[in-house]
């Protein structure tokens, strides 16, 4: 039998096989463990999962989604705020008293941590903002928005004709 690695002496070859076996074994073990933990590693439930009853009520959970446009209602006095998280399919109302992170705004990804009451409203103890992976200067962002609006207007004009 011709050796697949010509310059490896038998002892070194045995050790090389040992190293490979170690790598494969650990990868398999960790892979299986992660597969078993699958859902539990997720940081938050989506509104659809909450609607499907997957999130336990009465226990502290995290729900993540986008803040629905026009859903943010602030109390006239104090720090009370109420908004709706959505994933496009389902909605979860969140009630919170406290200071919101800088990135909080309508359309922004948010993770709210708290308890879901019997009325289905999440009373949040903590609200975290998620930010996306895009970085661009304001002028570029503005140009993109304008181009998008022109496109939308163009499509609307096309449709109206």
């Amino acid at each position: 039998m011709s050796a697949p690695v010509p310059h490896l002496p038998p002892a070194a070859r045995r050790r090389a096989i040992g190293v490979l076996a170690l790598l494969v074994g650990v990868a398999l073990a960790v892979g299986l463990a992660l597969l078993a933990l699958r859902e539990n590693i997720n940081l938050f439930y989506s509104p659809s999962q909450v609607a499907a009853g997957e999130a336990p009520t009465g226990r502290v959970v995290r729900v993540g989604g986008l803040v629905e446009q026009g859903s943010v209602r602030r109390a006239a006095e104090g720090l009370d705020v109420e908004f709706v998280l959505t994933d496009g399919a389902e909605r979860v109302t969140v009630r919170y008293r406290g200071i919101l992170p800088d990135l909080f705004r309508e359309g922004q990804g948010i993770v709210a941590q708290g308890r879901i009451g019997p009325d289905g409203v999440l009373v949040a103890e903590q609200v975290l903002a998620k930010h996306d992976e895009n970085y661009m200067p304001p002028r570029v962002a503005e140009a993109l928005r304008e181009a998008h609006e022109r496109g939308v207007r163009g499509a609307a004009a096309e449709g109206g004709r």
Partner: protein
Amino acid sequence: MAWTFLTTRGLDGLAARWAPRLLAVSALLLVAGLYGGLVLAPTDEEQGEAYRIIYVHVPAAWLSLYGYVAMAAFGAVALIWRIRVAEVMMAAAAPVGAAFTALALATGSIWGKPMWGTWWVWDARLTSELILLFLYIGVMALRAAAEDPRAGARAAAILALAGVVNVPIVHFSVEWWNTLHQGPTVTRLAAPAIHPAMLAPLLVMAAAFMVYHAGAVLLRARCLLAREPAAALAEEAA
């Protein structure tokens, strides 16, 4: 002749020549990258000036993974060929990689407070990066715990290799699970989701960190060789 760096004396000579040069180059790249990132790069639409911590955080995070793979590769060579130089290089790579990991965790935490609203969250990305730091520390501790540095290096190499499985977990954690940490901006198949004027200094910083890593590991290897001359002499005699 070309393989003289495989002897401890060869490695010492190589490190003596190259470590200062690499560290000097990395200092120049660092100045250029920081100037580009902190002065020339435009402000970010969403995060304003605060996003500029990316120029330390992201290269440090990349190097924490790169440094781990390098350390484990030296460990594999040490295990298979029983070469002392590889054991020394593995041991030298551990604290440098650990420092980058700690830097990535610290800058990430500082960035997380204003943007996310929290210093820390136990999501898959942050937790797996913390495990990476513990793996580095474990490799350092295991090697130091043994009476004989060579036996310690072999045990540490096995841990380093077993821990390699965590590297893809750190990288893909943001895709496999939902996390507070966002997805990859640069290291993905699609075009980078960052403006070219912001990307350029980031790549210069990554190059600076990478060259620093090579220089620091070689310098550290020299220290280890100087600190453990007995084993080296025994090897030269054999």
